[in-house]
């Protein structure tokens, strides 16, 4: 039985802006779900509904079998970590963590024990006496996490808690959040626009777009088997080739005058317009040598982007507009301007119906507005 259920949540703001269009989520106790999507997709709205800061127009929020849709936020027992630094500036780190326990009228001994324990848990046992302005951004978010955990919340809500931090601290802290979540076994709802972050720490990822959940599933599934073109585009980088099914039995498709074999196209109807999705790391590049091997496209290397252990190459040619990730050592043998062949995978490609409906992925600002 699901511990947290979001049932047909709908929310429309003034001016007819439909922030949530009937989202459905079921999350088991102790599980970690990331709501992932571009700016304006409704992920923060969904989190705020769960926290009780806003009310849905329709739908229900159920925790442990109890409908809490109309319960005040102060009575929901939800621990929340905000995107903006939210520590109370007039209180020390320890006093911030203690705040929720005082509200719950816990005894002094119990309070101080729990505060010490939680500050140790987030690695700030030494900083209890410091005020928020004496802490770095990463430390403030750790204290905010300890403060949210102090009340032993039924669900931990995290609203882009790492977006204001620098890259190194972000990676470090996200791993700590996951470690603590697993250690305490706390049900967690995490909002982010960073797909790498979501994939790295979640049990489940829900990709949202225009107020709807496009796909929900384990990170590996989201990456390898995106259900919609939007998910394919949003999670990782994907080559998108428009093609027509020419032989459903063998999985042969036509793309830009070239015949390709794609296992996933088998069983489709002949003449179907499809989208073949290929991850850059599955494309193999080799210098052109006059031969024309099967399942390859020809083109010229027009750009190289160094990404550390791999280098991303852009290949453009007749019928080919691809990106491929190759080892940096190999990239040195494929300089810009070289004619190459790109071998496409038969088995690793994914096929989707070619939808006429386009989509846009908005740029996520560093500090999302309210």
């Amino acid at each position: 039985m699901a511990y947290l259920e979001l049932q047909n949540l709908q929310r429309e703001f003034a001016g007819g802006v439909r922030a949530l269009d009937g989202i459905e989520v079921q999350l088991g106790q102790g599980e970690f779900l990331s709501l992932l999507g571009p700016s304006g997709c409704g992920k923060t709205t969904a989190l705020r509904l769960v926290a009780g800061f806003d009310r849905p127009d329709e739908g229900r929020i159920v925790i442990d079998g109890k409908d809490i849709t109309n319960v005040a936020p102060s009575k929901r027992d939800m621990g929340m970590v905000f995107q903006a630094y939210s520590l109370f500036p007039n209180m020390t780190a320890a006093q911030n963590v203690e705040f929720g326990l005082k509200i719950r009228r816990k005894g002094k001994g119990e309070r101080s024990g729990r505060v010490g324990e939680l500050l140790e848990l987030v690695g700030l046992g030494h900083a209890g006496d410091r005020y928020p302005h004496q802490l770095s951004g990463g430390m403030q978010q750790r204290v905010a996490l300890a403060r949210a955990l102090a009340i032993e919340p039924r669900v931990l809500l995290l609203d882009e808690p790492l977006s204001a931090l620098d890259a190194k601290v972000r990676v470090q802290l996200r791993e700590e959040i996951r470690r603590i979540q697993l250690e305490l076994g706390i049900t967690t709802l995490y909002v982010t626009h960073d797909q790498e972050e979501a994939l790295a720490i979640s049990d489940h990822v829900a990709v949202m777009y225009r107020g709807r959940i496009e796909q929900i599933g384990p990170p590996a599934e989201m990456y390898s088997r995106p259900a919609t073109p939007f998910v394919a585009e949003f999670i990782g980088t994907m080559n998108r080739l428009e093609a027509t099914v020419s032989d459903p039995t063998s999985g042969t498709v036509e793309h830009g005058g070239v015949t390709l074999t794609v296992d996933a196209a088998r069983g489709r109807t002949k003449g179907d317009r499809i989208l073949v999705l290929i991850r850059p790391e599955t494309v193999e590049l080799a210098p052109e040598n006059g031969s024309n091997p099967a399942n390859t496209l020809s083109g010229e290397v027009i750009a190289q982007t160094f990404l550390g252990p791999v280098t991303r190459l852009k290949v453009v040619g007749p019928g080919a507009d691809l990106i491929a990730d190759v080892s940096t050592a190999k990239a040195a043998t494929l300089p810009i301007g070289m004619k190459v062949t790109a071998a496409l995978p038969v088995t690793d490609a994914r096929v989707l119906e070619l939808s006429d409906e386009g989509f846009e992925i908005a740029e996520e600002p560093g500090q999302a507005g309210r």
Partner: protein
Amino acid sequence: MGKVKPRRSMAPSAVFWLLLGGLYFFIPLLTTLLFSLKSNQTGKCCTAANYGWVIHNGEFWHTLKISFLLALETIAVSLTIFVPTIYWVHLKVPKLRPVLASLALIPFVVPPIVMVVGLLKFYKGTPSWFYGQPWGFLAGAYVILAFPYMFFSLDAGFRSIDVHTLTEASQSLGARWTTTLFKVILPNIRSAALAGSFLALAIVMGEYTIANLAAFHTFPIFIQYVNETQGFPAGALTLLSFGITWAAMGSLLLVGRKRGTRASVLTGAG
């Protein structure tokens, strides 16, 4: 690492303007001090008798007490009305902020003499405990008079903190509205509330027109009376009232210095 440049000394022109400003400020004080030290009988310097006269004057303490209590009442009523109102406006209806700001300008625009005539007419016929007492009618008028100072001070305070996030963080931890307001919001707008309070104090301690027209005997009325009837003690009284105002401002400065120390630590946080 480059050499740290020694701090430059002040430019001569800056020293000149600073001196000029200082003279402009201190000469009237100095002359008032010299004036207040003259004997009321002989007109010669120097005696502290005028200060003694003021300090031993029952009316001085009586009117000072009335004005001081009126100031405290004005501050208490203003904070009780304006803190929750401005908090709510910032949190729930930010569109109303410009409307409130416009309303707050009215006491600046309407001359006190016009205001008091209007208020006296409006409240005529109300119970005597309100209309006939400084704690009722006069305090009410002073709350209106202090509105712009209170509003703009508090508004600046609320704008300097993230009202939404702090409120939501407090609520998510189980706090009710009152707990959030008193434990989380108020301590973080303390400086703004103090600034507004001291401005209100200064206004009430010096307000003459309304008190005079409404026939209440307050500290400024007493100052004016002494000024008209006693030459040299009036100087002593002026300096004493000036000292009271400066003591209030000094307290504000101390609070501000505390926060300034915190801010300097902030720049050092990694």
